[in-house]
């Protein structure tokens, strides 16, 4: 990713409203580079800062600043795996179906 695309990605993250985790339907509406980054992180199931920097073709410090912003926005979380700090997408969705209570009472 070149510097211009990286700066756009940073701006996209900064301009987002905070969320408490990511839904897949949200993901599909994100700008391309942000969506691709999150897709990659999901498939990797946790990445280290160095892997993220390599993916972005940026210095580790630059990648770290972006990660911190993404954590602040509620898109990803920091986890410990084998004593190593990793980052993974925070998937959110507890959903149910809008069926009137009366119907549930009948089927239960």
């Amino acid at each position: 990713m070149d510097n211009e695309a990286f700066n756009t990605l940073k701006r996209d993250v900064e301009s987002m409203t905070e969320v408490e985790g990511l839904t897949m339907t949200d993901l599909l509406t994100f700008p391309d580079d942000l969506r691709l980054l999150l897709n990659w992180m999901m498939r990797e199931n946790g990445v280290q800062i160095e892997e993220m920097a390599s993916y972005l073709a940026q210095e580790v410090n630059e990648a770290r600043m972006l990660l911190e912003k993404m954590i602040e926005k509620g898109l990803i979380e920091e986890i410990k795996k084998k004593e190593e700090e990793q980052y993974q997408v925070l998937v959110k969705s507890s959903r149910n179906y809008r069926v009137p209570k009366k119907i549930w009472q009948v089927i239960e």
Partner: protein
Amino acid sequence: MAVIVSIHSFRGGTGKSNLTANLASQIAVSGKRVAIIDTDIQSPGIHVLFGLNEEKMGRTLNEFLRSECSIEDVAFDIGEHIGDAPGRKSLAGKAFWLVPSSINSGEISRILRDGYDVGKLNEGMNRLIKGLKLDYLFIDTHPGLNEETLLSIAISDVLLVVMRPDQQDFQGTAVTVDIARGLDVPNLFLLVNKALTRYDPNQIREHVEGIFQAPVACVLPLTEDMADMGSADIFSLRYPDHPWSKSLREAAQAVLNAA
């Protein structure tokens, strides 16, 4: 690292669960460590192909999603419990598991009413891969698009979209293919099922590939023999020389090659 394979269709009745069971069985027979997770919580059915019913299946994905047990507790060891069906005998001793969804009406309505954390489903799949040291995890999804199916597609290394040669399926498949591209799935295949035998499968393949600009893993013929079996066994293991089984093995090979 395990390969995650999702089998999806936009519409119901495409034969998705049957295909998932057959494909996963073929790969398990080849010596790989394989599990299937039935995420079709609203209308589960794949367990039937492995001879399970409500009494036999034990713990289910529903209990894991309510945090009542670990995902490993739910994994039913198919290789150790093949039952009497002749096809499934080839699975004896294989490293092959099924994580079934409950077929109990109260359990289904409970999860529909209370919902569940899709993130927990993701966590469970990752734990299953590590705990069972899987080479392949197959996800049998609910037809159509919702949060769970989008998650399955997003984390997949291989996505097989099942369709019939039918106008409704063509339009729905276009939607699924668009979304899979948006989610950057590394290996996307189409799988045409229930093709009429009077048409040339190569022409069908060419036609479908031209429309969707994606490879067709196989074209499976419509067959009464399959319908006659009524999900009582794994068709491709019971009748390995049947044209349907030969075509199915092409798709299994595509999955193996994609890894």
